[in-house]
């Protein structure tokens, strides 16, 4: 049962195509599991259709139309030959396309202090990583310069805002300062996407920052 969802502003930005790769990946992953956000994402897309109708057209290459017309009869378009990686109970399909369906099979990198990470190495501003956090461990206290999206894939954590379980997303901006802590005896794995660097506060955070490099 998913109980934390995206902010409307986030879904508008996604519909507008104005998202970092990592953030749009995370959003698509949650949408894959969440009917409620799918509904709002659909509404945001309707807005886009109306507005984009008004774009000033760009100039096409001279042979643009003819070269596409020449392709219409070709069978078996290349695009449909892509192998599909299915998702799993823990990994929604859009994410599975990038990392496969098994979280435990990833080359996790230890960061000491009960944290491991796997960097998806996506382009653009900010970062997109999986964090694996041991029970009782907390991520250093931090604020954000931009937006930070988190989606829980395994386990749960609590922070100043509430309790987040599998499928839930935390949609935070620069007004929020928080310190998530894993709140059961099971580890927690979450996908985190940011569009600007995090700012750690407190001595532990400042020590950890260059090391974690989030």
């Amino acid at each position, binding site marked *: 049962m998913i109980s934390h969802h995206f902010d409307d502003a986030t879904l508008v930005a996604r519909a*507008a195509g104005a998202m970092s790769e990592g953030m749009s990946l995370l959003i698509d992953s949650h949408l894959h599991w969440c009917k409620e956000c799918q509904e709002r994402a659909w509404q945001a897309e309707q807005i886009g259709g109306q507005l984009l109708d008004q774009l000033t057209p760009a100039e*096409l290459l001279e042979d643009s139309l003819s070269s596409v017309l020449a392709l219409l009869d070709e069978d078996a378009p290349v695009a449909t030959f892509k192998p599909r990686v299915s998702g799993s109970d823990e990994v929604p*399909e859009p994410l599975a396309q990038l990392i496969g369906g098994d979280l435990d099979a990833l080359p996790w990198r230890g960061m000491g202090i009960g944290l491991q990470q796997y960097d*998806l190495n996506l382009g653009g501003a900010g970062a997109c990583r999986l964090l694996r956090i041991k029970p009782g461990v907390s991520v250093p206290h931090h604020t954000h310069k931009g937006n930070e999206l988190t989606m829980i894939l395994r386990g749960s954590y609590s922070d100043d805002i509430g309790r987040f379980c599998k499928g839930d997303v935390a949609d935070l901006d620069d007004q929020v300062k928080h310190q998530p802590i894993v709140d059961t005896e099971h580890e927690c794995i979450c996908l985190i996407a940011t569009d600007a660097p995090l700012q750690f506060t407190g001595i532990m955070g400042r020590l950890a920052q260059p090391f974690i490099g989030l």
Partner: protein
Amino acid sequence: MTEQQPEGVDVNAAAAIEDEAKKRERDGWSDLLATLAESRSKSDFALLYKHFAPRVKAYIIRFGMPPAAAEELTQESMLAVWRKAHMYTRGKASASTWIFTLARNLCIDRLRREKAVEYELPEEEVDPDQRHYGEQAILEDRMSKAFSQLPEAQAQVLYLSYYEGKSHSEISEQLGIPLGSVKSRMRLAFAKLKSYWGEQDQ
């Protein structure tokens, strides 16, 4: 506080949407696309191409693609229109919403694919839900009225976002207002538009 109008954005563009002739034109494109799967008519496709491809290209350029890549992706998007025409449902989305969503998914797909295994967004991305079938025409009509009634500051963040693909932080920088204000304007605009969508509004 007065805010600068971003260059190249016509905040009054929403008013033009109300124009009855435009609406009929849009409906015409949707009808044409709806019959494409059956007709497989290349001349119909060519008409759609001439209208939508230049707009799709303008849209793709906003993703920061170099011109050659933008042209290539535009062609790819329009090819996808031809191939996936059977998935288009007239009552559910206008032709432009459907085509722009296809193009957006291709762009995001392309950006990711450069890093990852071959990947195709799930078909459900384009067509996630059946509950909206038949609602689209009513919705479009109400929405154009709603657009023209948005306060300028709210319309502005929507335009910067959809027209220029600006992120929340970029808009915040451009307008010189905090990130939180950008997001709350967006929320307000979205809520206002949704309130015209009848019972779907919560």
